């Protein structure tokens, strides 16, 4: 089943600001990373998926349902964690999450049980009876995640879940999101402007920029094709580059390094052979797992 599918989705505010432009993408269940700079249209897309905003044109389906015509059915099966502060400071986490569980239609006792379960899963125990106003940013983010999880949705929409967290807090939050996506059996769309963060946990990556789709693919497909070998020699870098180019290897200079795309094991032999023939002092030869960020960095200018 397709988790989320959009077709020529466009959203303009007041006919001037274009938040989404002709976005067509389809993703399968799993952990989906939605990346893009601030203002790329990530939050707008999430709000359209929830049926909170109506698209200017185009079609959208979430869990096989249309949020523009049947928002209640979509929202019943989706949990949403907003980006901004959304917690009343004078309520305790337990009270707030219980109340919001009831707002999702859970009966009173079930709501209370599932609220403490959800808070336990995000790592809040005794502190859940204290007013939220005294919580740290990390704890507040966890409460926001718990309220999105409390009614057992099939899909979680997380808008910048690591916002404002320190590095340790980021890691903990990402681990939690990864656990929800793998162990809990709930699909997650996690949205971030930090590519390095989401690529660690997601199966599928959707990159948007200026409301347009840059690329959507499985993360494996994106990274495997981009593994490169980094070669460093103490001298004669230019000679080696020319030699490798002559061997039909697409060489790229990066400072003192030569980057060669890794096609198969034969690439190693070709490079080692070339170094040996030129009798150069080989300093280093290692495989570099290309970060997706570099993928976009090298792609964007060529596309533009």
């Amino acid at each position: 089943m397709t988790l989320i599918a959009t077709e020529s989705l466009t959203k303009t505010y007041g006919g001037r600001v274009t938040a989404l432009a002709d976005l067509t993408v389809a993703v399968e269940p799993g952990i989906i990373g939605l990346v893009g700079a601030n203002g790329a249209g990530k939050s707008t897309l999430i709000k359209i998926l929830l049926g909170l905003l109506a698209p200017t044109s185009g079609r959208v389906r979430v869990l096989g349902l249309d949020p523009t015509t049947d928002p209640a059915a979509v929202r019943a099966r989706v949990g949403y964690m907003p980006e901004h502060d959304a917690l009343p400071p004078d309520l305790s986490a337990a009270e707030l999450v219980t109340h919001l569980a009831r707002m999702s239609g859970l009966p009173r006792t079930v709501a209370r049980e599932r609220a403490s379960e959800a808070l336990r899963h995000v790592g809040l125990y005794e502190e859940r009876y204290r007013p939220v106003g005294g919580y740290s940013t990390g704890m507040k983010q966890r409460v926001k995640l718990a309220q999105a999880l409390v009614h057992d949705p099939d899909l979680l929409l997380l808008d910048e879940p690591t916002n404002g967290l320190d590095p340790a807090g980021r890691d903990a939050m990402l681990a939690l999101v990864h656990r929800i996506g793998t162990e809990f059996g709930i699909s997650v769309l996690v949205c971030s402007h930090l590519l390095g963060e989401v690529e660690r946990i997601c199966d599928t990556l959707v990159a948007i920029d200026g409301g347009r789709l840059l690329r959507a693919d499985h993360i494996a497909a994106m990274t495997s094709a981009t593994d490169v070998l980094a070669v460093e020699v103490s001298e004669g870098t230019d000679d080696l580059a020319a030699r490798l180019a002559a061997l039909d290897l697409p060489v790229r200079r990066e400072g003192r390094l030569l980057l060669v795309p890794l096609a198969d094991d034969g690439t190693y032999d070709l490079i080692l052979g070339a170094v040996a023939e030129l009798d150069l002092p080989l300093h280093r030869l290692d495989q570099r797992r290309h970060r997706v960020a570099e993928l976009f960095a090298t792609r964007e200018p060529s596309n533009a």
Partner: protein
Amino acid sequence: MPEPTGVIHDIGYQRYTGPRLGRRHVFGALYLHGLRTAFGLGRTAKAKIFPWLVVGIVTVTAAALTAVRTQIGQVLLTYAQFADAMSWLVIFFVAVVAPELVSRDLRSGVLPLYFSRPLPRGDYALAKLAALVTALWLLLGGPQLVMFLGAAFTTKTGMRGVWNELLDLLPGLLYAGLWAVVFASVGLLVASLTGKRAFAAGGIVAVFLMTTPIVGTLSIMPSRTVNELAGLASPSTLVQGVGAWALRDWLLTGEQSAGVSVGRFGPVYAAAALLLVAGSIVLLLARYRKVATR
């Protein structure tokens, strides 16, 4: 010492397959939550002070009136007049409770958490309104009930006396309902415009009290028509005008003449009250269609 037998298992995440209640239940849950919030129940002690202070004052007043009545055998205030007499307290109660119900949610940004759930936006606003109406009606109706019980237990004419008393009470409760609906819909609309509770409270007091001098000015104009229509300018006198027209026998007793004389414009007052309530609700719903969409 025996070996520990209990082992804690992390049973992991449990999917929920039980019932999910429909819109009516969710509305009911939000309504009850609002009603509890209005009286500070389930909230901090600080949130309970003001509502219960007002409840205390109106109840003590009702008890005192009942005591005086049983002692000197004279009705100082009828049930409906009691509602009029308490109008200031009602205004202050609205000024505290309405911001508590809606401004707080606007301020804390919790609305996206509501609106990302199946509950329609209009339901949120209407549940809050229903809660405030009920709270106000209880605020006025409760003391009226105290007065009724006092009168019923001390009546000298047996069951007939109780029955007559009940016939007096019912219009009083109806009139309390009118106060509740008008004040709740206007008060909640004002409170829904701002997330700052102090501003909301000030705005509500302003709307209800700043309009009284206008009524005062209009009611001493030389034209009798203007005098009789003057009450339309303020919510309090508007409600009193409707009461003076519809509940004349219960509101106007002997020597006391009502604060508002409506002449033949009674139906105008009723229509104006209806328009005010309907308009406030329409604006409230419009407000919640827009709020927190981005």
